[in-house]
């Protein structure tokens, strides 16, 4: 126990801070910003699985986020389902679509895969904008209910009206995502992901079925992207086709890259820092995207491992100087 504490105290502190945050931050606006950051962290983590750990440039990530969002919106608002049934159903639907799409798309490699997924994303965006009966066309769907209360008869009832409860809801799902990603990437299967990312031909030569590896990674990534999308739709209350746009994918890409690709903490840090940074850069509104594009290029040229890479470098330097002294 003590040993476990010694190596993991940092994560424990972070968890305690995360749990106590709603008590400290009472401003509605900031609370909303932070809840959204946690939510986007789920999407960024799942993108990191396929992009970082498996080395496949999926540009359909925003589209799968949108499948989850539209799934929950249609099931709860239009059909009146319970949120807790609608959310897993939408995520499973996205995973299934990921499977169907991955079958042909993952046979392609490198640039071909990037472009194929970009086209798939565009197809989903066009469907979201044009299928009036189902998606409400360009106006989208407004008035999506907040998550249904969880009730244990006679004991307690958890509702999701207050911001703090929504925060804890998202935090729960983020922790779930982190847990799954951690178990997955540290397992033997996770090693096959990394092997595929590093050298597909060599992996095949040592007996890894790279196609199945990539497919599994793609399905899991899309499942969690849709999960984030579903919660997003329910908390925000309205969605439009813009959730399926490439901009959404770009945002996730930015979080993953600036935070640190192929790390578990990186995407979360990215999803936190960038929106908060944006709050301070409000006055630059019009120039925001230009600045982002610029940042992307600078980061990929000079700090390809993002914030986490920078952190690791600094830590190593400190260690070295200690050994020297």
């Amino acid at each position, binding site marked *: 126990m003590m040993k476990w504490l010694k190596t993991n105290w940092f994560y424990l502190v972070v968890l305690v801070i995360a749990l106590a945050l709603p008590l400290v931050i009472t401003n509605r606006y900031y609370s909303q910003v932070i809840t959204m950051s946690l939510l986007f962290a789920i999407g960024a983590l799942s993108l990191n699985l396929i992009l970082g750990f498996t080395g496949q440039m999926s540009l359909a990530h925003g589209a799968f986020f949108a499948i989850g969002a539209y799934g929950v919106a249609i099931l709860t608002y239009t059909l009146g389902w319970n949120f807790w049934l609608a959310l897993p159903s939408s995520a499973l639907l996205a995973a299934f679509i990921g499977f169907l799409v991955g079958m042909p798309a993952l046979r392609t490699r*490198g*640039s071909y895969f*990037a472009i194929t997924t970009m086209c*798939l994303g*565009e197809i989903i965006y*066009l469907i979201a904008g044009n299928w009036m009966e189902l998606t409400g066309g360009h106006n989208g769907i407004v008035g999506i209910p907040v998550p249904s209360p969880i009730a244990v008869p006679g004991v307690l009832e958890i509702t999701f009206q207050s911001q703090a409860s929504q925060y804890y809801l998202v935090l729960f799902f983020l922790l779930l995502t982190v847990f799954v990603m951690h178990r997955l990437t540290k397992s033997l299967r996770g090693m096959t992901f990394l092997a595929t990312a590093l050298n597909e031909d060599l992996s095949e030569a040592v007996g890894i079925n790279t196609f199945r590896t990539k497919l599994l990674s793609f399905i899991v990534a899309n499942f969690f992207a849709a999960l984030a999308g579903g919660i997003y739709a329910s908390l925000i209350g309205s969605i439009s086709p813009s959730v399926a746009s490439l901009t959404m994918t770009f945002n996730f890409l930015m979080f993953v890259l600036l935070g640190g690709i192929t790390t578990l903490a990186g995407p979360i840090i990215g999803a936190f820092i960038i929106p908060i940074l944006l709050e301070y850069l409000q006055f630059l509104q019009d120039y925001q995207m230009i600045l*982002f*594009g610029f940042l992307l290029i600078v980061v*990929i040229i000079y700090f390809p491992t993002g914030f986490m890479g920078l952190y690791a470098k600094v830590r190593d330097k400190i260690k070295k100087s200690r050994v020297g002294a």
Partner: protein
Amino acid sequence: MELFLQQVFNGIMLGSTYAIVALGLTMVFGILHVPNFAHGQMYMLGAYVCFFLITIFGFAYWPAMAMSAVVLALGGVILEVLVFKPVRNAGGIAPFISALGALIIIENAVVVLWGPEGHRIPNPYPGIIEVFGITMSTQRLLVIGVAFALIVLLQIFIKKTTLGSTIEAVAQNKEGATLVGINVNRVSALTFAISTGLAAVAACLVAPIFMISPSMGMMVGMKAFVIVILGGLGSIPGAIVGGLILGLIEAIGGGYFSAAYKDVFGFGALVLILAIRPTGLFGKEIKGR
């Protein structure tokens, strides 16, 4: 039958512009092995340069097109040096990200500078010709004519001139080309210049027919990618045939089924073809990444 022929004509018109945009893209891919995601945005810039030359500086249509091609050719060289060269040896996903960054910057810079609304370039050839019941506007015929002339000229340049054949040499084997004294950096810059110059001409050709707006590049860029993949990355004949096929699929799909979903047909065709042939119609097996 008349509807069919009309749609075939429109398809060829669309397809021939797609073909020139895709040609540039596929050439750059052949040299750098990187998809230039910002290609569609360079196309959009070409249309804007043409628009400003005509409306503000009072250029006539043809000089404006030529000038726009020159400006964008320079722009292509700048893009190559600033965005692609630094990550040339980084491998992996770095070049993709760099290109995406360029895409975001260009598109949003145009929105900030000149607003998100559309503009129209006055049509220099508003006449209409009718043949076998098909309506052909002079401008549309012109698009087809210029596009095919450009394709032929480009082929002659690459196959018959020394400068042009250096492009092919570098595409085939970078080390080999360096060994025989070809300056790979210069060839990369030249390829980029031709690529974005061609995109600018294509944009100027269709600008009098469609509106120009900051978002016009995204769709065309994506379609150019579809074509390049349909034809096989790096294959010039593939880009030409692929461009015409996509134009026809869109025009016929849009004419007979649904105009709102016309783009879905094109992208859907791509996904189908890749499911059957993962390296495109004319593509060779590509090993590694």
